[in-house]
């Protein structure tokens, strides 16, 4: 006869409000095999855990059911308590009477009856629990960082400084991300290049960092501590080891008129190019779609002029396999555009702003390039259409953000601040110019942020108009901005020379595809989801994968850097151990019964099932059976549900246990 202990938790009032916990404990005490049952206000507290430990000794318990919250919340807590009381931790189970019962029901009697049922089921299951021993797996102390913006660079540097190897993968030819495009940064107005480029150089020169630029993640296999990453290094057409970065090729390339995306197409670049002069690495790449050689087979100028012979037109994509133990995802954001969207798309464009056809209506990043000393105008604010200096500039906030009817309901968080910054940068460069800002609210929570915004109004004389803009249209060489001033209650019309739209921050296009490769979750906008909004803000629900920067939600630089360092700290915590303990909830094959139909191999989402040959002493092949690699098994039970001969079972969730639970109902 078993001696099970049942502990019913009140969870303050969370459970006790709707469930009669005393009654549940009293009914549990009457179940066959239960030696002790009680209730307590907070089981997870120190006295609660002591109650459990003392009861194990006093009542010689050989199994425990804690009826409380979800096992995701506290299973670990109570298994540790059971362990310290000398019990095998896997003989302690949780009955979830909070999320599955008290939180979702109103009727006290019905909820109480259901709670008792849940407890009875778990008692039935615990009686058939086996003592399990955790599986240990070695940890590969090498990290992968995806995305080389400020988030990825910071995380990579922190992990590398702690003495671990880091593989940094960046999609573009250079690292740097958006921060490399910015001019000066709020709230201190220090130059972005000056604080960013040294970090880029540090990352490239760090002995512990392997940098793969112009590369993407092809596939991801494995699990925490033991991932196998395949990286696709796209053909650069330039041999990195040979190139000295002299730039002769770019200077001589006859294709000069290709719009430079880094400069938001305000400037041009050749077909063989580095995106910006401070690029890291300073190795050019041939844009094959625009290169004469690749289009017509003629030209070859760069190959002729390149001294070290670094140009290789035959180069192909290469696949590189990198074993790593942890992954930091830092793929950042992109800006929403007001252009027309495909029919049926939940996100809409702005026809009322001309769908992006008015040349002097630009977005914030374009303004950053205009204001940047290393930008296409050398830091002069000039209109894209005619190169004139604009004397009246209208800034429009919340374009695409906080606009449910346009498909995005969240606040992009950074635009109130960068718009205030833009008005200042403008005033510093065009002293007789006037900046106007249309805004819904000014959201400036952050150290020295509100002071910064006030400065834009009080010292730099930006005129803030509270209200929305309904239409923008070209009239002669002016842009008419029609809006409302809700404080005064009038309609406003401003004839502007330049209009700057603070467009929404969105995840990168394709963020969902990468998430599917990594097996991490994302929200309806494709921002990556953290495991817990408050307590696990940098961890993914998938073990061993962490998040940093704007890929998780809109963020400014201070928030991005903090999160990147936090993600790095999590990686270092993981790497502090040589071996990882994994839950022994894995599938086992009964080799006697297995008929090797290998259906389980087809359905296993983790690829954990292999074929195993059984041979006699002479080495003759007798049979083939399925084998589950316990290091890879994710414990999902899919194989168990699909095996036609019932030859594979998950420890802790055997058919016998499940049947016992059903019978207890």
């Amino acid at each position, binding site marked *: 006869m078993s001696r099970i202990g049942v502990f019913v938790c009140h969870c303050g009032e969370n459970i006790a409000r709707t469930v009669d916990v005393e009654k549940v404990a009293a009914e549990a005490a009457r179940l066959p095999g239960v030696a002790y049952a009680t209730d307590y206000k907070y089981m997870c507290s120190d006295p609660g855990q002591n109650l459990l430990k003392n009861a194990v000794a006093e009542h010689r318990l050989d199994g425990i059911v804690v009826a409380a919250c979800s096992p995701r919340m506290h299973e670990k807590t109570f298994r540790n308590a059971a362990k310290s009381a000398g019990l095998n931790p896997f003989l302690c189970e949780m009955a979830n009477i909070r999320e599955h019962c008290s939180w979702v029901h109103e009727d006290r009697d019905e909820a109480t009856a259901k709670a008792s049922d849940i407890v009875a089921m778990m008692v039935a299951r615990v009686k058939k629990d086996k003592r399990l021993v955790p599986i240990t797996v070695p940890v590969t102390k090498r990290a992968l960082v995806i995305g080389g913006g400020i988030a990825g660079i910071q995380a990579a540097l922190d992990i590398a400084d702690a003495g671990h190897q880091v593989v940094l993968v960046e999609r573009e030819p250079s690292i740097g991300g958006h921060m490399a495009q910015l001019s000066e940064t709020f709230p201190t107005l220090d130059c972005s290049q000056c604080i960013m480029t040294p970090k880029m150089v540090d990352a490239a020169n760090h002995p512990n960092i392997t940098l793969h630029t112009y590369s993407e993640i092809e596939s991801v296999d494995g699990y925490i501590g033991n991932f196998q990453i395949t990286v696709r290094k796209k053909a650069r057409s330039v041999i990195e080891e040979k190139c000295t970065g002299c730039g002769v090729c770019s200077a001589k390339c006859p294709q000069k008129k290709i719009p430079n995306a880094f400069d938001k197409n305000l400037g041009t670049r050749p077909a063989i190019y580095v995106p910006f002069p401070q690029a890291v690495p300073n190795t050019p790449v041939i844009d094959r779609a625009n290169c004469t050689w690749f289009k017509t087979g003629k030209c070859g100028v760069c190959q002729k002029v390149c001294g070290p012979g670094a140009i290789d037109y035959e180069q192909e994509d290469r696949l590189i396999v990198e074993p790593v133990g942890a992954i930091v995802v830092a793929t950042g954001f992109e800006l929403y555009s007001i252009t027309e969207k495909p029919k049926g798309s939940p996100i809409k464009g702005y026809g009322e702003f001309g769908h992006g056809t008015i040349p002097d209506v630009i977005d914030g990043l374009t303004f950053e390039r205009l204001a940047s000393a290393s930008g296409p105008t050398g830091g002069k604010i000039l209109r894209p259409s005619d190169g004139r200096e604009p004397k009246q500039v209208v800034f429009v906030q919340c374009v695409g953000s906080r606009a449910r009817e346009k498909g995005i309901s969240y606040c992009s968080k950074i635009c109130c601040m960068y718009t205030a910054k833009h008005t200042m940068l403008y005033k510093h460069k065009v002293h007789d110019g006037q900046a106007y800002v249309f805004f819904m609210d000014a959201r400036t929570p952050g150290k020295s942020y509100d002071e910064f915004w006030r400065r834009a109004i009080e010292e730099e004389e930006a005129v803030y108009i509270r209200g929305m803009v309904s239409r923008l*249209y070209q009239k002669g060489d002016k842009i008419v901005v029609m809006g409302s001033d809700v404080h005064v209650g009038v309609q406003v019309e401003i004839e502007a020379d330049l209009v700057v739209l603070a467009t929404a921050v969105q995840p990168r296009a394709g963020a969902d595809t990468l998430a599917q490769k990594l097996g991490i979750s994302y929200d309806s906008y494709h921002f990556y989801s953290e495991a817990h909004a408050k307590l696990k803000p940098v961890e993914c629900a998938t073990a061993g994968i962490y998040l940093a920067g704007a890929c998780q939600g809109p963020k400014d630089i201070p928030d991005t850097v903090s999160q990147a360092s936090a993600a790095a700290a999590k990686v270092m915590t993981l790497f502090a151990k040589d071996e990882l303990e994994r839950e022994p909830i894995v599938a086992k094959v009964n080799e006697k019964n297995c008929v090797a139909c290998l259906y389980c191999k087809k359905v296993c989402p983790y690829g954990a099932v292999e074929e195993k040959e059984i041979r006699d002493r002479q080495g003759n092949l007798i049979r083939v059976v399925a084998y589950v690699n316990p290091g890879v098994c994710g414990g999902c039970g899919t194989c168990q549900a699909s095996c036609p001969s019932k030859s594979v079972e998950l420890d802790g969730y055997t058919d016998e246990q499940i049947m016992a639970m059903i019978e207890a109902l």
Partner: protein
Amino acid sequence: MTPAKKLLSYSYYPGCSLHASAKEYDESTRGLFKALGIGLKEVPDWLCCGATPAHNVDELLSLSLCAKNLSLAEGVEGDLAVACAACFSRLKVTQHHLADNETKRKQVEYAIAGAVNLQKPVKHLLEILAKDFGLDRLTEAVQKPLSGLKVACYYGCLLTRPPEVPELDCVEAPTIMERVIGAVGAETVRWSHRMECCGANFTLSRPGVVLKLSGSILDSAKAAGADCLMVACPLCHGNLDIRQKEIEEATGERFGMPVFYMTQLLALAVGVAPGKLGFDSMIVNPLPLLKEKGLV
């Protein structure tokens, strides 16, 4: 063998204006459809849709009027063709609104003593011409191309709005009018006030507002080099054509800008006799312009 061309036929809801101040819209619609071989059968006993005033006063009244019309239309075969932008918008809004509001639907069904017809496709003439009939066939039917005529297409507020409801075209930057009139050879101008409000039913209560709003529409069409305006709504037509003189007096600017219903221009292009298109009932006389362009 080429497949036989589909014979199109519609039930038709003209609305009050087309039987009164906008007779020429009705006449030209019938003329155009006849010339194109598209059937048009008027819904018997239809009533006023309530247009913009009704839903400002009593929502239930406005929904019930439209619901009644929809149920009357049930008896006539074919999708429901609507010419007036206001009727079109109200009928669509009614279907949209009652489809996901059961309480209101029950109230309305009580009021009209019958079921609401949520299924009948309600189509604006533009949609019928551009999508069902097709722009290629429209071009084929042309006898007198409108080449040389510079048209400013004016949508007004209601053709595409409220968003998600009429689904005629892009809400804020539609092109359907330009595509349709372009198919018969007219030149369309790019201009800024295609979607601005003309003042609509403030025409009697706050004429000052109308003069300002409609004035800026005429102003911007003229600045864009248009010879004329083309509209698909009797309310817009009233403000822009009938009040044009008044606007000229108030602003001191001369426009002399004829305001056509879309069907007048289309019918002219496919060979309907000018005498049947109601040009003589327009306040700003279009004949000098049409003569100059060699169209009459």
